[in-house]
């Protein structure tokens, strides 16, 4: 292997989807045996570029060189033959197959299955020993956690003898400990001579493990720099095109009277699994309570209960008055009337109706207000005027209320939802994953709005799987695991390591813990959940 032939070289790659130019004349060189980061906002064209490299899309123009040789990649099969493996953001695994079957799928030895499976079993053992990729080959995908599933994806690529591994936003679903483990695996792979491309929007990951980083903005490659020679503020500026505040600026909180009290909240879902096991929290006026946790540990259920679309047992008081959790007054409309606003976690399914216009979406949930109605008819002119004003204040682009919600970018969609909820001046704002799939510029803006609401003396419950976000926004942090609050911390007195342990259900955070211990704990929880189901 010569050091001067790039493992991958792309020259002049362009790709358009209709009128949208996703990639514009992109050239990049990735050297062998390095970890090369590609960073950019959502919609910058990172994933499109990698999909072209993996044969998922065909480029309109441009050339691909693999190890110096011009290579045509019309489909994924060709990419695999060229030694490229890809770990997608959403895993491409068959849920009810075993690990072994998933690894073998598409790379079988012959028409009969048994010899292929036997060979794969031997290979997996070797790979596991070589790269810390331990995994039970006979476990079913649906029974193992996301961290393990990701390892299966990596094993799939290695089993196909990939020399070049592309990972698309790999840490989005992982706990900090799992992410650390992943990074160790990636470093191990690099040291064995593999080339790794890491697509991410997280500056911290870029700084932590890449050797070189390329920045993309609006379909163009704006810079490629050595990681050691750059800094997060510089990268952020390259990504957004202007200076960005990475740290939220906020004054210390001045909590007032108690707004929300939750006592012993319990939820049992339709499968009979207990999702919330006695939750107790309290939020005061002028305070942001951040709820940290790996997705699927009950945060969503808690938001749904408080938002009024899931029934529960227990006590919830708003401004000292009890809230109906099971009866006819337990619906979302009553909650809104009482001063609870809700930005749901999933804006596509709960926050917006994508095919409806922006102005219709801005009115949802509040469409029965007198100012939006004339007798039995809706006053569309009034709603549109109101929507236009809100979109203006929240800098939604384009500021056109007649456009369907699906035509806005993720960040602007989220601004529409946040504008709708915050502008109603609620006593309590429930906000789930406020910046998921949102670009840095919009993140900054949404964070400012949340802090501004707090400074007006409102209570905020912030649910997020992004620890950075929790740490920088919250005045207090509660950590959820398996339907319970594992503990509360002040952001100034805790760190990612401690929160990460709590997120894995380990409360004695002063002791050092090995990864094996954390994984065992997670596995135990999954087993008990499976038994209940």
């Amino acid at each position, binding site marked *: 292997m010569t050091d001067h032939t790039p493992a991958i070289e792309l020259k002049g790659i362009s790709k358009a989807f209709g009128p949208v130019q996703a990639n514009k004349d992109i050239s990049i060189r990735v050297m062998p045996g390095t970890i090369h980061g590609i960073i950019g906002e959502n919609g910058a064209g990172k*994933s*499109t570029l990698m*999909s072209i490299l*993996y044969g*998922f899309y065909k480029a309109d123009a441009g050339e691909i060189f693999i190890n110096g040789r011009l290579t045509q990649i019309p*489909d*994924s*099969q*060709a*990419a*695999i033959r060229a030694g490229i493996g*890809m770990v*997608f*953001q959403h895993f*491409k*695994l*068959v*849920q*009810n*197959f075993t690990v072994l*079957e*998933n690894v*073998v*799928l*598409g*790379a*079988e030895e*012959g*028409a*009969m*299955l*048994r010899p*292929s499976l036997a060979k794969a079993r031997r290979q997996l053992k070797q790979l596991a020993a070589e790269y810390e990729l331990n995994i039970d080959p006979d476990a079913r995908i649906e029974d193992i956690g996301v961290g393990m599933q990701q390892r299966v994806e990596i094993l*799939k690529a290695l089993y196909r003898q990939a020399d070049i591994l592309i990972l698309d936003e790999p840490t989005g679903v992982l706990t900090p400990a799992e992410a650390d483990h992943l990074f160790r695996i990636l470093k191990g792979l690099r040291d064995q001579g593999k080339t790794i491309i890491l697509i991410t929007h997280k500056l911290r990951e870029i700084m932590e493990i890449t050797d070189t980083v390329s920045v993309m903005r609006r379909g163009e490659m704006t810079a490629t720099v050595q990681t050691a020679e750059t800094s997060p503020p510089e990268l952020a500026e390259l990504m957004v095109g202007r200076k960005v505040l990475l740290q939220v600026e906020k004054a210390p909180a001045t909590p007032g009277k108690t707004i929300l009290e939750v006592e012993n909240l319990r939820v049992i879902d339709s499968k009979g699994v207990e999702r919330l096991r006695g939750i107790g929290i309290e939020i005061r006026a002028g305070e942001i309570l951040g709820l940290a946790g790996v997705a699927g540990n009950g945060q969503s259920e808690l938001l749904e209960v408080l938002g009024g679309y899931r029934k529960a047992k227990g006590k919830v008081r708003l401004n000292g008055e009890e809230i109906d959790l099971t009866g006819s007054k337990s619906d979302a409309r009553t909650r809104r009337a009482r001063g609870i606003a809700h930005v749901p976690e999933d804006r596509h399914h709960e926050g917006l109706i994508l095919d409806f216009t922006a102005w219709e979406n801005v009115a949802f949930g509040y469409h029965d207000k007198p100012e939006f109605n004339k007798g039995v008819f809706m006053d569309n002119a009034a709603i549109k005027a109101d929507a236009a004003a809100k979109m203006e204040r929240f800098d939604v682009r384009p500021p056109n209320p007649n456009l369907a919600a699906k035509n806005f970018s993720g960040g602007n969609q989220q601004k529409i939802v946040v504008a709708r909820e915050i502008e109603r001046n609620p006593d309590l704002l429930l906000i789930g994953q406020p910046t998921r799939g949102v670009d840095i510029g919009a993140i900054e803006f949404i964070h400012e709005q949340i802090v501004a609401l707090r400074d007006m003396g409102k209570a905020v419950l912030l649910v997020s799987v992004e620890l950075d976000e929790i740490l920088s926004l919250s005045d207090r942090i509660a950590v959820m695991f398996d339907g319970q609050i594992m503990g509360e911390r002040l952001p100034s007195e805790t760190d990612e390591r401690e929160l990460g342990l709590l997120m894995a259900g380990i409360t004695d955070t002063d002791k050092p813990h090995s990864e094996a211990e954390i994984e065992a704990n997670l596995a135990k929880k999954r087993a008990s959940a499976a038994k209940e189901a």
Partner: protein
Amino acid sequence: MDFLTLLQVLDTTIRLATPLLLACLAGLFSERAGIFDIGLEGKMLASAFLTAAVAAVTGSVLIGTLAGIGAALMLSGIHGLASITFRGNQLISGVAINFLAAGITVVIAQSWFGQGGRTPQLSGNARFESIDLPFVSEIRDIPVLGPIYAELISGHTLLVYVGLLMVPLTWWVLFRTRFGLRLRAVGENPAAVDTAGISVVGLRFAAVAICGLLTGLAGAYLSTGLQAGFVKDMTAGRGYIALAALIFAKWRPWYALGACLLFGFLQAIALRPDVIEGTLGFEVGVQLLDALPYILTVVILAGFVGRAIPPRAGGEPYVKER
């Protein structure tokens, strides 16, 4: 009920279960690959007609069966085109096929044979003959085992044995071959198959073609094995019963055999009200007996038999996504 009567009822059970079994396995291949097929009924009907028609004209049941399979394959092709290539709604495509087959078979039968939408009665080589397995006459006189072998196991037509052999064959293909692994994968998560560099469209068309082949056999058996000629709507909902059996069987080949035998048994006792009366001691309405398989179908489809998890990607056209 004496032993011989029991054997007769079970013998009828096997014969009546065969078209259900072939259709059920046909649906199993299709649905395991993620293509729901409500059009089993229509394909059986088309095959039943064309098999009988060609057999009547040529006097050869084998040529007839080939023609019947061809008819079912053609309808499978239409279903594949609509639901795989053009990503249409699989239920609508299936319903359209059922209507098309119900109408066109009678129209063509009338135009060809002028016998009121039937084919002529088939006899001799235009029907499947029953096959006597070896040593029938020697074994027949052995108590218990002899009659079971002679009455129940021996003496069926070729397609009955084909249907029964299809059960282990289907199991083997699905769970022991590369094709089966890929077929099951494409019904669960086509994106996994696509990113592994395998053609989703190719696999699904292969599954739909196997479905056509098996429904073709099922239809051929109806008009040349079970009966002697085609009559209007002779499938009588068997395609839907096969679908119910498929759900009952949780998309597994051996369970499918059990489910189809159960339905076959219900149809068989409906033919023998005298046996029912003799066993139970009171008369049960013939209408009720006739309705039993359909009642069970409703019960199964309503989900009273426990949770059956269909293939996860079933019914959804595959659209490439990042």
